[in-house]
């Protein structure tokens, strides 16, 4: 049996979770997921300003905190912290190890960055069509900020076989981080589809950190103990493909069939066809049981061969947006916010400003759900203590969006009464970095695995 822990569900997740995972009980592998879809474009911008940047700096700091523990407890680390510059990240980690006087072996998984060869690919007729709209990438080529292939678990396995203590990747599937150790430790083959699917589902279950151990859990949420000290998830994986999801003893949160089911369905498409670079996992074959307190066992998982394609994540500049807010107080808060909305729309119209979209929402009334069933009833609406008008515009003309931002503050004096600007001032204009999902034949790209021996 091996123990695979997750200590980070996204870049910005708890800084203490990875440290706790290493120190508060036994684990063999620590996996960390730093890369959301928009993260790559942010990192691309950072590297454009500084060639040494473009990776998750939090990761390097975290390694600085726990490296002695990792070595003493023989825990290996797998993280997609490399972002757009995995080699730069490895250099930084290497420098930390040297400073601490702890020799470690680092491996880098790269080759996922398509940006340098993007035009060459397009010229050869690989059109990187948008998976949702079918439009070819050429339509937005000039706006592209980043383009990365999602590799699977096997390049990470190669790094582990090379003896790496820390594996730093660029873009790989989130599930590959948790799957790779099982393939490596148990010698699973590239066509052990059921086992690869099991490892993939284990990876999916832990990839969002505490979201499977009681965090963001709707099932009896008020009774979940000590979320302040919530334990992050651990997979106890067996060579036969069965596994248990658990957490360290003495930590907060709760691992139940219900908490695990919620995470299994998170961001789910067709449950029979969960497609990754390594396999297709069938979520309708999972059998769960509560085999102890904070322990849920997974069995029966079936898988199939993957497709001939890698998924590609492309980010591009898609215009500008700005969002402003005003809060209106009782009585008739909702009616006042609605009146302010109408006034704003008229003023933008008088100014002749054109936008792709104008959107108003009423926080406190029905902004989140947005459905008729959630509208405040006529007797409740006038009694709401306050309602926030959230008003946004989006378009290609930066000057028009900028002009809109000047129309929010005046509402404090020249619109409906009993209003506060929430101290936020004038809204800011933001670049919109949008996401373009595509596919590419696996023959077109090759992962590059490099070992980084520390010679300190």
């Amino acid at each position, binding site marked *: 049996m091996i123990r695979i822990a997750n200590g980070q569900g996204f870049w910005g997740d708890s800084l203490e979770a990875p440290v706790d995972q290493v120190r508060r009980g036994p684990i063999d592998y620590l996996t960390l997921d730093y890369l959301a879809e928009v993260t790559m474009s942010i990192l691309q911008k950072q590297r454009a300003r500084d060639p040494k940047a473009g990776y998750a700096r939090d990761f390097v700091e975290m390694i600085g905190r726990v490296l002695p523990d990792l070595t003493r407890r023989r825990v290996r680390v797998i993280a997609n912290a490399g972002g757009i510059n995995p080699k730069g990240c490895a250099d930084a980690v290497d420098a930390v190890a040297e400073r601490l006087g702890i020799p470690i072996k680092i491996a880098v998984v790269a080759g996922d960055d398509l940006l340098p060869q993007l035009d060459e690919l397009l010229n050869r007729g690989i059109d990187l069509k948008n998976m949702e709209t079918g439009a070819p990438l050429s339509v937005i080529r000039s706006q592209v900020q980043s383009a990365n292939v999602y590799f699977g678990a096997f390049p990470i396995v190669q790094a582990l076989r090379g003896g790496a203590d820390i594996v730093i990747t660029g873009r790989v599937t989130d599930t590959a981080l948790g799957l790779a150790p099982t393939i490596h430790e148990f010698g699973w083959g590239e066509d052990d589809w059921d086992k690869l699917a099991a490892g993939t589902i284990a990876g999916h279950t832990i990839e969002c950190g505490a979201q499977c151990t009681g965090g963001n859990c709707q099932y009896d949420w008020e009774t979940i103990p000590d979320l302040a000290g919530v334990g992050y998830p651990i997979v106890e994986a067996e060579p036969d493909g069965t596994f248990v999801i658990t957490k360290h003893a003495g930590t907060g949160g709760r691992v139940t069939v219900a908490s695990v089911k919620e995470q299994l369905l998170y*961001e789910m498409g067709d449950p*029979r066809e969960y497609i990754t670079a390594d396999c297709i996992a069938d979520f309708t074959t999972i059998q769960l049981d509560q085999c102890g307190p904070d322990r849920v066992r997974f069995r029966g998982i079936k898988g199939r061969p993957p497709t001939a394609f890698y998924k590609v994540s492309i980010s591009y500049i898609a215009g500008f947006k700005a969002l402003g807010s005003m809060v209106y107080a009782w009585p008739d808060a909702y009616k006042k916010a609605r009146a302010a909305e109408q006034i704003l729309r008229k003023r933008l119209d008088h100014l002749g400003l054109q936008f792709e979209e104008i959107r108003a929402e009423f926080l406190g009334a029905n902004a989140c759900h947005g459905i008729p*069933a959630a509208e405040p009833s006529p007797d409740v609406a006038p009694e709401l203590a306050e309602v926030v008008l959230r008003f946004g515009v989006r378009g290609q003309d930066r000057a028009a969006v900028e002009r809109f931002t000047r129309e929010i503050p005046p509402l404090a004096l020249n619109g409906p009464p009993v209003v506060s600007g929430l101290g936020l001032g004038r809204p800011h204009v933001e670049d919109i970095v949008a996401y373009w999902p595509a596919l590419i034949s696996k023959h077109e790209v090759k992962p590059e695995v490099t070992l980084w021996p520390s010679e300190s």
Partner: protein
Amino acid sequence: MAKRKLIELAHARSGDKGDTANIGLIARKPEYYPLLVREVTAERVKQHFMGVCLGEVERFELPNLGALNFLLHQSLDGGGTLALKADPQGKTYSSALLRMEIDVD
């Protein structure tokens, strides 16, 4: 015929893929699952999300988990960073679905 709100019978989690929201609806007890299958159809969900879901609703069954998964296409104002919504990733659509009332016998 008696009516009950889904929040008494099920729990849920939602997320996004581009402009598509997904909602996983999970029976609180195994005996509730057939009720969910019978009552919470793709058509009813489409109707429930009137004005929010502008595309198709697809439904998938996971009897092994006592759960249904719904895909609500064109439901996130363009999705991700394009959206001007307070909830651009549809994270709160889970409990929006739990407002639905269904017939129980």
